[in-house]
């Protein structure tokens, strides 16, 4: 359907002010989306939230319910694609680890209806535990990857990405980063949504059954298809090589890094620039740039994916490459117009323009050091996690070396003072399994603390391990009836937690439910202490609605 033409932003378009996340979601709806799937995670949450609130999506009854985790979400989206309809699934970068099995194998089954796998990276770790770069996953799975550099491209890439996915019959990754996901700009949008695809089944049904015999055939095709994918990248309207007047340097700028490069040259960039927003890398365009210039600087947000490929193991590219691996750009954290300008000045000292005027801050610079102190986030006043931690820390005082294995959510803030209550935070669900491993090692008491949404995301299977082995450990499910950290999305276990635990085989005598309130702190403490002494598995559900969602519900009522 899409013939690689740049999108026409003519008068028939409707201008809207949208976050990068929202632009992509609206682009998908307007391109005939049939279903959106996701598990909440900063900075990707607003994608599904936008679909949930969109009038067209509601009218059409498009799927927009939260999934239990990213893996179930990818599989559900793939099932919709199998039936010929356009689907998308969105998650944060570490969510793609959870969904990796489904995602990597979806490149093997391929797609039928267009399918977008949206992964939002969080360089600088504003709200994440690492800086992993989703482009590695696209390369690993051998799917195409789109990386919008602005909100308009995020919108346009939805329709383009569905087209690409249907032309190549493979899911297409869309990689976002925090500064695009959570930045607003005007976007020219279609006034009406295109029709949805009708139900249809894959042309090559064998490929969808990944038994070795089928997989071997399909894998050869997938490798052969890389040529087509690369050709698409060469012809992509989102990859452009622009000429410059000064060939002493060439710049490769991908995704949002392209904006920072352009910000450094308000009068236009004197150097040739290759803008990359579609992968696999267009080798032809890169060769053209290398043939033209003396040196090449690579500006990319996240890990040095393009740079490492250009350098190769022996670091022998045909022209010197400058970037994150040689210290021109910072190796960690997100890029900024400042860090890109600094790198350009390092490479081309004549670009330095020392301002005549001193910055406004210079007169007070010396005083700032002890006048500006860190203001870390904290649990809200009136949050039930606070009372759980008050009881837990009091109970732990009775032991010499108690260990509490934490998890991902607001309650990770329990590591900070005044609680200093948890010892670990690894990934979704790891509280239960790490507590189990510690108990296996002889740790007592071994305590896991996990939220309700994290429990149904990835805690249940680990709990089954502990049930089967009768592991002496205590699991506290701090249930606030929502997915709190990301802003209060529906939690898949609400109203079912005790049933789930009993169903997994937790001993009813050691499954307790208690309110987490200031007035129940003593009672919680006693309960914790008695269950720590139980020589088997205990689960305590401490429950109180999130203060933020409770306020919202009170307003509505």
């Amino acid at each position, binding site marked *: 359907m899409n013939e690689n033409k740049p999108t026409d932003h003519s008068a028939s378009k409707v*201008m809207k*002010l949208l976050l990068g996340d929202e632009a992509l979601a609206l682009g998908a709806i307007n391109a005939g989306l049939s279903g959106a799937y996701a598990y909440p995670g*900063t*900075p990707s*949450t*607003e994608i599904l939230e936008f679909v949930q609130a969109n009038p067209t999506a509601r009218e059409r009854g498009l799927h927009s319910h939260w999934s239990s985790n990213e893996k179930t979400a990818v599989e559900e989206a793939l099932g919709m694609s199998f039936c010929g309809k356009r689907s998308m699934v969105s998650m944060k970068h570490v969510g793609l680890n959870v969904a990796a099995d489904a995602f990597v194998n979806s490149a093997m089954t391929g797609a039928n209806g267009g399918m977008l796998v949206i992964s939002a990276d969080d360089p600088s770790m*504003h*709200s994440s535990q690492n800086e992993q770069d989703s482009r590695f996953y696209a390369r690993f799975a051998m799917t195409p990857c789109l990386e919008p550099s602005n909100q308009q491209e995020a919108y346009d890439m939805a329709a383009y990405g569905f087209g690409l996915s249907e032309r190549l019959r493979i899911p297409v990754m869309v990689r976002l980063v925090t*500064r*695009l996901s*959570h*930045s*607003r*700009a*005007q976007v020219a949008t279609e006034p009406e949504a295109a029709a949805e695809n009708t139900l249809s089944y894959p042309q090559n049904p064998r490929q969808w059954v990944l038994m070795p015999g089928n997989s071997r055939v399909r894998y050869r095709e997938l490798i052969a298809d890389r040529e087509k994918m690369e050709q698409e990248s060469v012809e992509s309207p989102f990859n452009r090589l622009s000429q410059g007047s000064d060939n002493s340097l060439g710049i490769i700028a991908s995704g*949002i890094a392209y*904006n*920072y490069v*352009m*910000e450094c040259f308000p009068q236009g960039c004197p150097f040739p620039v290759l803008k990359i927003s579609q992968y696999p890398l267009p080798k032809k365009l890169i060769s053209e740039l290398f043939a033209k210039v003396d040196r090449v600087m690579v500006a990319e947000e996240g890990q040095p994916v393009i740079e490492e490929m250009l350098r190769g193991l022996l670091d022998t590219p045909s022209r010197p490459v400058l970037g994150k691996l040689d210290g021109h750009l910072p190796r960690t954290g997100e890029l*900024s*117009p*400042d860090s890109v*300008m600094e790198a350009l000045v390092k490479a081309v000292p004549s670009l330095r323009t020392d*301002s005549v*005027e*001193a*910055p*406004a*801050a210079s*007169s*007070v610079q010396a*005083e*700032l050091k*002890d*006048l*500006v*102190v*860190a*203001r*870390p*986030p*904290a*649990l*809200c006043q009136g949050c039930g996690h606070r009372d759980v931690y008050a009881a837990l820390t009091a109970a732990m005082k009775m032991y010499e070396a108690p260990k509490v294995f934490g998890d991902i959510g*607001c309650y990770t*803030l329990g590591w900070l003072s005044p609680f200093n209550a948890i010892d670990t935070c690894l990934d979704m669900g790891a509280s239960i399994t790490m507590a189990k491993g510690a108990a296996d090692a002889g740790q007592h008491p071994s305590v896991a603390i996990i939220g309700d949404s994290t429990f149904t995301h990835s805690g249940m299977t680990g709990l089954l391990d502990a049930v089967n082995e009768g592991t002496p450990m205590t699991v506290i499910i701090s249930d606030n009836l929502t997915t709190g*950290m*990301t*802003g209060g999305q529906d939690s898949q276990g609400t109203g079912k937690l005790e049933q789930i635990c009993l169903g997994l085989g937790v001993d009813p005598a050691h499954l307790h439910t208690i309110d987490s309130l200031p007035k129940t702190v003593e009672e919680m403490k006693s309960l914790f202490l008695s269950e720590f002494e139980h020589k088997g598995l205990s689960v305590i559900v401490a429950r109180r609605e999130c203060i933020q969602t409770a306020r919202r519900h009170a307003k509505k009522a």
Partner: protein
Amino acid sequence: MKCDIILAGVGGQGILSIATILGAAALRENLHLKQAEVHGMSQRGGDVMSCLRLSSDPIASDLIPTGKADLIVALEPMEALRHIGWLSPAGRVVTSTVPFVNIPTYPDTARILDTLGKLPNVTAFDMEQVAKEKATLRASNMVLLGAASPYIDLSPEKIEAGIQAVFGPKGEKMVETNIAAFRAGRETALSL
């Protein structure tokens, strides 16, 4: 026209509503706009910052380069100082003088205000007091928007239309209260 604004405050203070209103006003003026904001963990009582860029020409970066901001607009004096490195030589700080103390290590407020006073262009007053007198405490952020408005190249009528657009769905009373707070903030700033 080009106006680069750093909005600063503490999670939950209403900084993002200011950005939304200016965004709505800029959209009507056919100005280009980019506004980067922070969601997630930092909203739990931590410091929050948003870059708001308005321009008659296309804008490249979502982030403002340091030393280039025309305005720092803050609902809290220490948060104004936190981002002072962004301010351009001729830039202005518009901030409330009321500290938001939710940490045990909060520095001496008098010293913070003293340091702010040494900057060349500062508009600082007790915005909570003005909000309480002329509207409601919750509308302190609209007092701040009003105080910053003389330094933003958008007419007050256009900004009020933005307030109408954003608060309209919540009822006419909300619109009136917030416009009253906006006007009081603007008048106070102009009378300093």
